Each structure stands twice: as structure tokens, then as C-alpha cells.
């Protein structure tokens, strides 16, 4: 199959591309900077560019749309342009060119309106109620993508939660960095149960979604390892794998949240991500785990790498790097 991937440079994107290649698919990777994965056709293109053309879509069997603006730094307009407008235009082009399948990378945060989530499935995206421009714009985009589902175009949204793996600079990298600097704290003792997703499993869900033309048509699906763990256990295992000392100190949820807000305010003018955000505090300080049975059923997918294997892989990666 010919499959177009936007935003294929990150941990998840590059893993998806490698899996697609190994399964014999033709991969067209569209992004702003080269990813340099051998065997792909790379198109350097900024999807937010109003003059963007979509000739590279021609003849594709499926599109996996990962490109997005993440994090909390940036203006509403920047987020809207990258996450809503770019998606909307890409979707229009997909429809115009008669491409039958559109796989949208979404996030559990598009439906996260309460503080703790325990064993819930993919509930509807709530752009008006979720917090932060990232979540709001992704929610708007997810709604548009799923509404576009028709007999000609099958759309699906996958919401992977906390993707990690060897080489991950986002989650693992930051945890290790902070642990090394002695600035890693547990929030409220670190007892909150959270789901994470080993990158191979997340990538496999995207690959299956791209390969099966109508599976889960019009649905949003949760993607996790289905093995929720206490934050304290996760952090300890990650630190152990990286050979750094695990966090021993804990701060209360309220104190952490207050700190998160004030850091955000203080950081407002800077370009980089703040070291602590209220969003991060909420993510790590409250339960976030999900029911993935619908995803298993509709995509005929299951997490193939369990957490234990994942941590072994991580340890191996750190060992070979040093």
C-alpha cells in the first residue's frame, strides 16, 4: 500500500514509518525537516503554509496525520493554524483526491474534563471544556475528522496516552534529566495510577488502522499498554533503567499545582517549555487510565510489548548509549 505519514520525525512517527517499511509498504513522509529514514520518500513541506500543495497525496491508500503543534508554549493562533487549519485543509485535499482512509493522531487530553480518569473509554472530544490550546485545538480537529467519515472516506482517531520507548526525549528524557539534577519529585506520594504506551504498541495501532480500510470508521479509540501503574513505580523503573537514582521526595498535589501555575506565569515570555506546568502536575498527580477493549476489538490489535519488556529494552538502550 502507499501510505502518507505527516510528522514522521518524532519517536512515534519514526517507529510507525519503520514498521510500515518492514511490512512492505510504500511510505511518503511529509514534514518540515528531514527525518533521514532510509527507504522513504520524503517531502519537505510545512502543512501550515497557506500555499501548501498536496500533489504527494496522489494514489495514496491511506494518510496517517501525526503533524501537530504540542506543548503549552505558543499563541492560540499558532496552535489553531497547526492543529485545526492544517488538518482541515489536508482533510479537504484527501477528500478531493479520493483517498479512502484517514488516520488522525489525537490525544486523550481532548476529552479530559475531570481530574481523574479511571477505566474510561474514548468519550467525545470536548473543545469547550478541555484546558490549554493544544487540547482545545486537537479536540476541534478530531471532531472535524470524525465528522468527515463517509462511505468514500473512512476516518479514525487514535488517542495514545504517554508514549515512550528507547530514544524518547519527551517523557523519558525529561524524567532522567530531572532525576540527574535531583529535581524529580513525586506528587502526593506518586500513588496515582496512570497508563502509558510503549512506542511499538502505539505504532502498531496506527499501522493496523492504516492497513484496514474501514476498521473503526468514524470512531475515536484509546491506545495504551492496558497496564496502568502507579507513577512512583513507573518513575522508579525508568530511573533504574537509566541508571539514575529514583525520586525519594514527595510534594503535595496542591503545592505542586500552585507551583505549576506560578512557573507557567513566570515562563510566559520565554520560547522554551517551562520545567513544570499545571498540566503536567495534573497528568502525574491524578489517575489516568483507560479501557482499551474497544480498540482491541475494532482494530484487532493488542499491545505486543508488555511494560516489563519495554523497561528491559529501555535499560538496554541506556546501557549501549553509555
Amino acid at each position, binding site marked *: 500500500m502507499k501510505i502518507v505519514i505527516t510528522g514522521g520525525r518524532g519517536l512515534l512517527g519514526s517507529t510507525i514509518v519503520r514498521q510500515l517499511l518492514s511490512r512492505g509498504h510504500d511510505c511518503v513522509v511529509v514534514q518540515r525537516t528531514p527525518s533521514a529514514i532510509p527507504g522513504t520518500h520524503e517531502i519537505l513541506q510545512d502543512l501550515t503554509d497557506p500555499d501548501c500543495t498536496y500533489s504527494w497525496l496522489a494514489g495514496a491508500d491511506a494518510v496517517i496525520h501525526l503533524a501537530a503543534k504540542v506543548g503549552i508554549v505558543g499563541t492560540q493562533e499558532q496552535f489553531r493554524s497547526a492543529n485545526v487549519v492544517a488538518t482541515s485543509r489536508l482533510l479537504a485535499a484527501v477528500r478531493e483526491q479520493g483517498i479512502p482512509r484517514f488516520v488522525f493522531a489525537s490525544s486523550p487530553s481532548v476529552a479530559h474534563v475531570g481530574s*481523574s480518569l*479511571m477505566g474510561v473509554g474514548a468519550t467525545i472530544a470536548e473543545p469547550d471544556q478541555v484546558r490549554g490550546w493544544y487540547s482545545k485545538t486537537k479536540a476541534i480537529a478530531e471532531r472535524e475528522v470524525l465528522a468527515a467519515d463517509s462511505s468514500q472516506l473512512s476516518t479514525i482517531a487514535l488517542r495514545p496516552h504517554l508514549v515512550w520507548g528507547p530514544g524518547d526525549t519527551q517523557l523519558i528524557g525529561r524524567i532522567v534529566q530531572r532525576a540527574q539534577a535531583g529535581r524529580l519529585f513525586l506528587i502526593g506520594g506518586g500513588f496515582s495510577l496512570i497508563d502509558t504506551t510503549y512506542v511499538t504498541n502505539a505504532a502498531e495501532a496506527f499501522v493496523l488502522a492504516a492497513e484496514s480500510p474501514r476498521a473503526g470508521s468514524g470512531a475515536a479509540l484509546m491506545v495504551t499498554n492496558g*497496564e*496502568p*501503574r502507579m*507513577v512512583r513505580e513507573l518513575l522508579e*523503573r525508568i530511573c*533504574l533503567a537509566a541508571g539514575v537514582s529514583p525520586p525519594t521526595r514527595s510534594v503535595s498535589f496542591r503545592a505542586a499545582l500552585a507551583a505549576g501555575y506560578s512557573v507557567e506565569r513566570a515562563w510566559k515570555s520565554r520560547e522554551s517549555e517551562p520545567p513544570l506546568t499545571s498540566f503536567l502536575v495534573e497528568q502525574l498527580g491524578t489517575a489516568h487510565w483507560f479501557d482499551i477493549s474497544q480498540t*482491541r476489538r475494532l482494530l484487532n490489535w493488542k499491545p505486543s510489548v508488555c511494560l516489563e519488556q519495554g523497561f528491559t529494552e529501555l535499560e538496554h538502550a541506556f546501557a549501549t548509549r553509555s
Partner: protein
Amino acid sequence: MAHSPITIPFEDLPGVDPAWSRFIQVEDADGIRRSFHFLDSMAAGSETARLTIVCVHGNPTWSYLWRNLLALAPSDVRVIAVDQLGMGYSERLEQPRILAQRIDDLTRFVGALNIDTPIVSIAHDWGGPISLGWVECELRCDPSRIEGVILLNTAVHQPEAFKGPGIIRLARARALLSPVTEKTNIFVRGTTALSFKRIPKVVQKAFAAPYSMSSRRTSVQDFVADIPFESDHPSRSTLDAVARDLELLINTPVLLCWGPKDPVFSDLYLRDFIERLPHAQVHRYEGASHLVSEDAPNLFPDVLSWISDLGREQKINNGNLNDSQLVDLSTQMRVSARKFPGSAALVVQGKSSGSLTVTWSTLNVRTAEFSAGLAAAGVKSGDRIALLIPPGPELIALIYATWNIGACIVLADSGLGLRGMIRALKGAHPDHIIGIPKSLPIMRALQIPGIRLTTSKLSAIRGVAVPNKDTAHSGDLLGAVVFTSGSTGPAKGVRYTRSKIQETVNVLTRQYNLTENDVIVAAFAPWVVFGPALGIASVLPEMDSSVPSSLTYDHLVQAVNRARGTLLWASPAALTNVVKTSGQSDTTNVDVSSLRLVLSAGAPVPRSLLLQVAELFPTASIRTPYGMTEALPLTDISLDEIMSSESDHGVPVGMPVSGVEIGIAPLSNPTEFSNQPDVVGEIVIRAPHMRSGYDHLHFTTKSADLFPEWHRTGDVGHLDPKGSLWVEGRISHLVRTSTGVVTPVPVEQRVESIDGVSQAACVGVGPDGAQVVVVVVVCEKKWSELELHDAVRTVAGVPVAAVLVTKSLPMDIRHNAKLHREKISQWASKKLSGAQ
């Protein structure tokens, strides 16, 4: 009279389909055409009904009360809910109407609808007598027209010596009547605000919607004024006639649904109905108040299931004894009194090695004296006597005296606590109560129509014993209502007929080869009760019978030694303390070789404990029966059998005792059951000595009797290929994950096999069907967090999301031996949800 009703604000009436709303003009007794508003589930008229339910509200509600019944009714059942004149959206009245007129209005209203199906009536509050007046009128014309009668918190009679509900009397006080009911909406709003569970604001508003202005509340006031407290009240004779004519309902199925927290229609009124309609089926919705249908969401589904069963109800007879056979529970006591008059029937070990011995002759005479005294004090066959007395000669003599006159004992485990006992006894409607002085607060909290006596005044009911008086009574007569604490919810009263009690005695005799040479050491209350019926002497070791763990080794061996006890029955908590205190014992060289059998019952028993008990009593065989308040024993297993069975598949409880049948209802398809080996499911049982039902809990009995004649135990387990039963936990403790159901006990057993873990609880966290397993452990050593997780996951056999460490695990209040998994699950869930 032309009348334009005000607009009905449907948008403010959640739960009401505007299509249900109808008006009909009906000519009243004075020839005036009156406009009735009513809700009709088949207002469209296209469907055909097999049955019609006619709903009558009380004061100050309106047809809105029945909205959920209309919504839930199946397509072939028509539900009609009338607004009485002056109420809801029916026409307002110029003059107050008395009960007789209201009955006539309702009769005319139903007549005008030309209902051509059989009818079921349902009524609430003062709608009760109005509805019953009309039903009696229908029954006089055509006894087949009324298929069933359902009553919710209502009354037809002021119980003697009771001046009526305080709140209503207050509202009736001349000075208050108008200000409370008409001038202000205190009464209208108060009705929904007083509810036990908080009724949503929008629903409260909907109940008050038709009574927005004082001119629309005139009938609310008139209704209250029409309550005939006084004997010369114009409605008194009508109410009395309605009550008297209830005998017309003798062949009509009746269902009484009650919210016992009602400050107006308390249990006294329910009791009055049960006396007048002894065939009625009763369900008390514990915790529900006056608006019982708002407080108990199950009420309307229950009502509909009752209606769909009408005509299909069959008498369930699950005993071997023919229920109409006469049963005399004192036969063996009299035999023993004749054969061994001077031998001990009961030995009570007291403080400082003292003891009290009661001979068979004395026990027999005392029982006969109490029988005569109770009868003289007015206790009749069928009456209920609550006995709040710890095990001892008084309790035993009173129990058999009660049985001898055909009355029923009500026993409530003191482990329920004061509030639990009061709640339980309120629900059981005892006619008489006898208790120790300490139970006075309980006695005061109950409204007892008959004898109310403390044991210090027992001589008041010692009559002159009548020799050879026949004490046999019909086996289907209720013999006992027993309350024991469950781990969740309020205690349920378990009913035993006399035949079931006799069957229990028979099963115990057969199973343990009991003979007159046996002497029971009763550290577990039921045995004390059964001793005389078994014709076997009992000895009570010194202990606080309400605290099983108060039994010490010294006191136990003294009891065994003094009475040459052959059989010990004790709870695991008692045995644990016996083992614990055996080390510090100063009792030496006490001969306990008379003991041939030790039975441990009431909760699962750790193997190590049984081994230690075996060491203390080398001559005895150690056995643990499995059973419950609803039937005991069901199965039985020896220590040797336990030790030779695997320890990670659940608790082995052994082979069924003779007469007991065991089935397993698979969790995947709980509508049928089998005795196939290795199928995990709910354990269902059939036994001649099984309970006859739950007291005043018609629908609880029905759900336990999902399979006719069989009892659902609520326990989950499996049968092995030999037919031996294994218990894996309570059905309410199952962990329902997205990939299947996990039974807690095997997981706990595997985790407890880890060195350094002394106790484990396996609980679910998260929503049903997407739960994850959390193991909570008590540790004997300091673990590193990761090592503990790895150790638990290695043995658990199921995916474990988290392992939490705690100092001690909560146990159920009664036995102090069963894990309180509900509590543990809540605790774990809160902990793992992080900050709120």
C-alpha cells in the same frame, strides 16, 4: 362546568412525556361535569393493552409521582395515573371533598375510561384508602376484574393507642392548617424535601408545579383536614368500612412496598396491613422514606416484575418435611428430661471457675412455665417475640417456650451494633420483646404492642406449667427470624419455618453422628439454641458471646474438662484467640481427651490455625463446615482433606452433606446452572434445611430464588471432579476486568504464599468491565517497592496494576475473619486516583 385548566409546563416536568397528558370530563355525584387530568401511557390509543394499571396519588403529590412507572411499563401494559380533583392539573373545587366523595369520583373516573382489560391498582399515601374504596367496589361487582393491588406507604386505620403521625397532626392543628398547607407551600415543598435521599431540585420543583399559588392549594389543605383522626369525623365511618372490607381482597394478590423511614406512615401502618392482609407480599425498601418510589429506584421495576408474575406465582416447597405436618421442637428435650432428669442439660461456666448447671428436668419445667406464662400474657400462635438475651438458660427456655405455643422467635446478632439491631428489629415487627436490661435502649426505640419485659422481671411470665400439653404446631408456621450481619447493606431477616428448624436439627444429627452421649462445647451461638432440640447437653465456656475472640484457652479447656465435652463448635476468631492464649496458659494437665470433634465455622479458616488447633486437641478430628445464615451446614471438610488439597485455587470446603445439592451458575451465563466440574460461577444450593425466605423483602427473596427452590449464595466457586466444592470469593468481590473476571481468593492465596507477606486482599479498582486488579498486602518484612511488585506479579497469575502496603486489613464486623473487600477496594481506589 366549563373550566379552562392552566397550561401544563411540560418543559419543567422531567420524566413526563407530554403525549401522556389527557383530560376527561366526568359527571360527579352532584351531576356536575368535572375535568380530570391524567397521564396515560397509551394516550395515542394505537396499542392494545393486556392489563391496565390505575395509579392514585396522595397528598400533596400528583400523577407526576408515577412518571417512571409509565416510562418503564412494557408495551402491553397501559398505565393510567389520575390527578385527583383539586389536585395536579385536574379541576379546582369550590367545596372540600370527603373520603366517600373521593372514592365515588375515582370510581366514576375509571368507569368513564371504559377499561376493558383486567386492572391492577397502585396507590400511595391518602390515595391508598381512596383507591381501596374503589377496588372494593369493583370486587363486589366482579371479583375477577382486579388482578392485583399494590400499596405504597399508606393507611386504612389508626393503630390503637396511637394518635396518628406527629407531623400530620401538627399540620392539622387548627392554627397551622391553613398557613402550612394553603397559604404557603411549606407542606407541598416539605413532602419532597423530607425525603431520605436528596430528590433532585428539578424533580422537587416538578412535584410543586401544580401548586404554585395558594388558590391552587385549597385541596391540599382540604385533604389534610379530611384525615379522620377523630371518631366522629365525617370520613371516619368510610375509612372504617374500607378497612373492614379489605376481606374482599382475600383472593386478590396484594403487594405492600414500604419506605420505613417515613415519618408519617411508619412500620406500624405496614404491620396493620400485614395483619389485615396476611397473604400480602411485602418488601421494605430499607433507607427509603415517604416518597418510597423516589427513594428506591428499584421500586417500579420490582412492581412491574410482580405484575408480570401475577397468575404464575407458585408455592415453593423446598423441604423434605411436608410443611403441613406437625412439628414439635421440644420432643427431644422431653425425652431427655424423662430419661436423665438429673443430668446436666446446660452448664454455664462463670467467673473464677464457678459454674451454673441446669438439669434436663429443670430446663423442661422452666420451659413449660414460660410457655404457660407467655400464653397467659397474651402471646398467641404466630406472634413474634424478639429475644435480646445472651446465650444461657433463660434464652433457651424462652426459645422453646415460644416454640411450644406456636410463636416465632426474632434474634438479632449483637454484632450488628445498637443501630443495626434497632433497624433490624423495627423491620421484623415483633409483637413482644424480652431483653436484658442493657437492651432497654433498643426496646424503647421500638413500638411494641405486646409484652415488653426485661429479664430482671422474667418471673412475671412464669406461669403454672401444664404437664403433657401438646406443643406440636404446623410445620409451615414461622419459627424464627434471624438477623446476621452481612458485609454490605443492612442485615436481612432470614425466615425459618418450624419444619426448616427441625430439618437443620436432623442434618446436624446425621452429619456428625450425634448421640445422647455427646456434650457440645458451644462457643458459637447457634449450637446453644439447638442443644435441647438435639437432646444433647451443652456447655458454655466463659466468654462474651458477642465477642468471639474473647474465648481463651484456659476457659475453653475448663469447660471441656468439667462437662467432658465431646464436640467443640467455635468461630475462627475464637479459635485464633484460643491458640494465641494457649502459650501463656497456666492450666496444666487438663484432660481434654473427651473431645472427639472440633468444628470451625462462620468464615474461611487459615490452614496454619487449624494445624495449631489440632495440636491442642490431639484426640479430636478437626472439621470445617461451610454454610450461611440461610442454611448451615452445606458442606464439610476435614483438616486432612484440606492439607492434601492445593492451596491456590480457592478455599476447599468439601463434599455436600447429605440432602444438600450444589450447582454452579456460570458467570458468563448466570441464567442456568450445572454440577459440571471446574466451571467457575455462583454457588447455588438446594437443601431441606434451607431458609424459607427473607423477612419483608419479597424481591430480595425472589432474586435469591432465581432458580425455583434453589438459593443463590452470593459466593463464587467451583466443583472439582470428585464433587467437592471450592469457594473463591463473594460475587460482589469479583474483579471484572476488560479481559475477564478474576476471583479474589486464589490470587490472595498465591500472594500469601510469598515469604514476607502475611496477608493479602485482591480487589478491583475502576468501573465494572474495565477494572484492574490491585493487591493490598500486610508485610512481615521491609520490602523494596519494586521487589514486592515483582514478587506479587510472579505468583499472582493475573495482571496486577499495583501492590499497596498497609498495616492491617479491615475485617467484617461479625466474624472478624472475612476480609472487608468493599472497604479495601474503596480505600485502594481513592489512593490510586491521586489528588482529587
